[in-house]
């Protein structure tokens, strides 16, 4: 595992892509692992355009503002999200982006890039809806501070009321984990 740095994450995409849940899964697992965490969604008429995002902070010290304006990690689920948030990433930040829906290349050259064909991978597993788990898998691999087994446990919790989806989501998570590179 690499040295932990405070995670200030933006997870962004279209409504329905599960961007909020992706963020929440990261936050919940991190909480259980003893980190201080916060999660906050975009809210209000921001949603009208069909876009959604959430901000997650994972930190060893108490979380200050939950609102992230300069993330060090961006999970971009689609092209408008990449375009909207790329510039706000901290220099050296991690950009995890859904190659399946984003045909363009990131403009910034000072970022650590984690392209991942999240939608395609999810599709292959049989359900586009699991795209977000693929993205989380990539996140966990890239950042390296979370034990993937703990994330899977958390997925079980999260889908406790819909057990039929547990396996799919765990598989998606694993696939994302596999497909991505750890950032050093």
């Amino acid at each position: 595992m690499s040295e932990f740095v405070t995670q200030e994450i933006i997870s962004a995409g279209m409504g329905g892509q599960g961007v909020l849940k992706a963020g929440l899964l990261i936050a919940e697992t991190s909480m259980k692992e003893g980190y201080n965490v916060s999660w906050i969604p975009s809210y209000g008429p921001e949603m009208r355009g069909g876009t959604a995002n959430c901000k997650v902070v994972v930190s060893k010290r108490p979380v200050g503002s939950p609102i992230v304006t300069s993330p060090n990690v961006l999970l971009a689920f689609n092209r408008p999200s990449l375009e909207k948030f790329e510039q706000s990433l901290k220099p050296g930040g991690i950009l995890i982006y859904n190659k399946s829906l984003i045909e363009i290349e990131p403009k910034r050259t000072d970022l650590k890039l984690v392209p991942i064909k999240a939608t395609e991978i999810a599709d292959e597993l049989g359900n586009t809806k699991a795209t977000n788990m693929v993205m989380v898998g990539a996140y966990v691999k890239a950042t390296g501070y979370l034990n993937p087994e703990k994330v899977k446990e958390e997925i079980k919790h999260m889908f406790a009321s819909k057990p039929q989806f547990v396996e799919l989501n765990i598989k998606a998570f694993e696939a994302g984990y596999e497909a991505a590179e750890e950032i050093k």
Partner: protein
Amino acid sequence: MEKVMMKGNEALAEGALRGGCQCYFGYPITPQSEVAEYMSRRMPELGRVFLQTESEVATINYLYGAAGAGVRCMTTSSSPGISLMQEGISYLIGAELPCLIANVVRGGPGLGNIQPAQADYWQATKGGTHGDCRMIVLAPNSVQEMFDFARDAFDLAEKYRNPVFILADGALGQMMEPVELKPFLEFDPHKNDSWATTGAKNREPHVITSIHLEPEEMEEFNRHLQAKYLLMEKEEVRWEEYQTNEDDLDILIVAYGIASRVCRNAVDDLRASGIKAGLLRPITLWPFPKAEIRRFADRKIPILVVELNMGQMLEDVLLAVEGKTLVDFYGRYAGIIPSADEVVRKAFDTLKKVGK
């Protein structure tokens, strides 16, 4: 106890429930509609009352009725909605009715925006309504405190027969954080029977009112209120300190609510760069921890006040300090939360002003 991730608005709702809230009245407004949405599910489950009202002006008067009937009751809203409740708040105070009101503040003025802000501080602590009105104003800074303060509010309200006010903000309402859900509170549901409108069975009629036409009578009643306010000032001041245990602090930051969290990190960062910084967080904005701040002023420690407004609590700090030390201010407005870095930079500025 295990912690669960929960939204601030939902934690507030669940806390109130567990504090014995029997009736919720509310009207949707961002960024606090989740309180009503949560209550619309939970209250009927518990056989309690949820009512979406026709407006905030009406809401505060539903509350006025239910509070007069002696049950634990509450409403929540956000800035413009709270402004519409001002007449009713004065009536609640004038009729000495306990209840809980929460403002999940957004940016103003006017319709403004729906992001976190702290520009309703004065409205809550001093001048929102007509007459000499005071309420205990609790300022949570975490989802846990959204839960805790809501749960405790009713006891406090009934202790003084006065509304209790929670002043939060859009970020606290919308964010999720780990919360420990404390159990349902035990309380005496007949505590208010001695004055509430429960039906005049085998007793003299009870009257809930705030009109006293004779000036002498009205003045007398105001003296009674003032005595209550003085008691609150004596008994209910709450605050929290962080890294203030040194005699020769370089700087004290004063901040409440969401801003205090950023400032806590700023204190750490300042200390990392060798500045002995400390934080004082008022938890009750009224009564204000005046004496506590005064302690630092007496030691000539420069003070930096950080708020999400143009400087409202600032005045309470200045009143506490009485010119005994430098008081500096950093404010962001209407939806913007400063970063810890900004606060650190500003603190260095402040230090420069006192020649450090």
